[in-house]
């Protein structure tokens, strides 16, 4: 069973909650799919068994021995990545999309494509089972493909080790990385916060999950920071037929646990927030609709 935890936006507590679920669930495969800012390895310090290179696209490079500064590539580039500056043709690495059209149109074969190969995927053991995570090198693109790679590895490990659960800590946003993180999963938990922007991001995340015919669970984190907004969100969920997984209070234990490099149930097993997390996990796994 694959459970993805997403949030529409980062910082709602997705990673802390994923880490807690992983420890509550027992032996799991934990896939950190927030490849842009992978954080769970900080808490769990997994031992690295495998490291794979991920090629995240290509960039065009000019060989100035061959370039005549004719500017044909400038005309063809639709990403405005090539400019003639002081009579010299230059490619902005920042704007290059790697489409290779410039290399194809160049009459002097002066442009070649270089692979971005600084991104990595790691996997290995951690204290709750197996863990897979990706690290996208700064500025590299196509994180959706790296997410796919992380998920494929997680499935492989689950099969090999007979793990019944894969927990996916999803990337923020509603873009292609999130789509890669939730396509084909059994269930999705959207973590939200009781704020105007929280509700707005929740609605966008719900739209994405509905494209995949997933009926998401909604978990309201830090609900006591604005109880009025919490009611607004609960009402929205009821009206839209969304399942409410539960509510978690704002609690400094969450930060304390992180600073001490522990998941919440490890750091404060007897706390109220830990018992709420356990209840929520049981509800999600049981698949019962509480409403």
């Amino acid at each position, binding site marked *: 069973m694959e459970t993805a935890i997403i949030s529409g936006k980062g910082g709602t507590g997705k990673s802390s909650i994923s880490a807690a679920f992983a420890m509550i669930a027992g032996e799991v495969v934990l896939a950190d799919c927030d490849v842009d800012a992978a954080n769970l390895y900080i808490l769990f310090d997994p031992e690295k068994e495998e490291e794979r290179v991920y090629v995240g696209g*290509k960039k065009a490079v000019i060989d100035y021995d061959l370039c005549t500064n004719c500017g044909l590539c400038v005309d063809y580039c639709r990403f405005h990545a090539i400019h003639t500056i002081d009579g010299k043709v230059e490619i*902005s690495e*920042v704007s290059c999309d790697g489409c290779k059209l410039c290399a194809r149109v160049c009459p002097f074969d002066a442009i070649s494509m270089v692979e971005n190969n600084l991104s990595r995927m790691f996997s290995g053991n951690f204290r709750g089972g197996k863990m897979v995570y990706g690290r996208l090198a700064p500025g*590299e693109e196509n994180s959706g493909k790296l997410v796919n790679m992380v998920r494929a590895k997680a499935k492989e490990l689950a099969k090999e080790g007979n793990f019944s659960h894969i927990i996916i800590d999803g990337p923020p946003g509603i873009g*292609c990385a999130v789509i890669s993180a939730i396509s084909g999963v059994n269930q999705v938990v959207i973590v939200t916060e009781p*704020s105007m*922007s929280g509700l*707005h991001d929740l609605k966008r995340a719900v739209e994405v999950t509905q*494209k995949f015919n997933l009926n998401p669970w909604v978990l309201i984190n830090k609900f006591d920071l604005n109880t009025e907004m919490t009611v607004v969100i609960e009402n929205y969920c009821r009206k839209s037929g969304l399942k409410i997984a539960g509510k978690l209070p704002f609690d400094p234990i969450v930060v304390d646990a*992180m600073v001490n490099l522990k998941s919440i149930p490890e750091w404060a097993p007897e706390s109220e927030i830990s018992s709420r997390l356990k209840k929520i996990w049981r509800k999600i796994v049981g698949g019962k609709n509480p409403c």
Partner: protein
Amino acid sequence: MTNGEPLKIAIASGKGGTGKTFVATTLFHTLIKRGLQVTLVDCDAEAPNVLEFFNSGKIWEEEVSHQVPVIDTEKCVFCGKCHEYCEYKAIFYLPTMKVIQVMEELCHGCGACSYACEFGAIAEKPVSLGVVSGFLINENSTLIESRINIGVMSPVPLIKAAISKIEPGIAIALFDSPPGTSCPFIQTAARADFIVLVTEPTPFGLSDLRQSVETLRQIDKPCGVIINKASLGNRDVYKYLDQENIPLLLEIPFSREIATAYSSGKMATEAVPALEEQFLQVFSTIKMNYGNSHHQW
């Protein structure tokens, strides 16, 4: 500032949820109150939130689209060259079955297929990526929002379009940056003179901050840090800033008043008026040190 070019400040964070939008909107509000000409650009096209903090009317809207191929199967000879030229695997091609189809959601609109086709079988049509809109805050100041359509691959074209809509002659432009350190963040940061990184004093915050700083050094952009929720967590972020010689612009302690005001869509300065003076100080520091340099991108 000089030569009609605005001072461009991006507010970024490596990751969402550290208080980036909170800093961007508070700074915007503070500068407007001083009568300055400011444009705030919401570059977080995947989850634009800035508008929720300001009552304002839309003054313009522009659809951002790219050109996607349309294959005329009457003219197509199924040579497969367009399929071969497409780096994004957006053209589905089964020569034996005489099937060729464009998968629009994978297309980046680069035009390589049109260039490849020697039989005039490829035309192009615009496909919407999202919308960029302008809002009037007062006679001096505007807000520009980028908003990507759900399912669109990359927010970068929206970000570029939004930033290009800044009116000439405006004094200050603030960019509320998208999270992460990949293309959307770089596209935003590359267009700014200075980047304010908002972080939290926790291991997650430090990890994301480190990654942001490394990225900014690669594109040679100066940055400073605001530590939000400064009363929680530990001292590791402070040590890192010391080691790396990165200016600490401001510390904002965690406060329920701020969190509650912010969550209701109110300005945090209403709850904690002292913030206004502190934000003004941050702006003065940036202006003094970086106000006259205008980097190319």
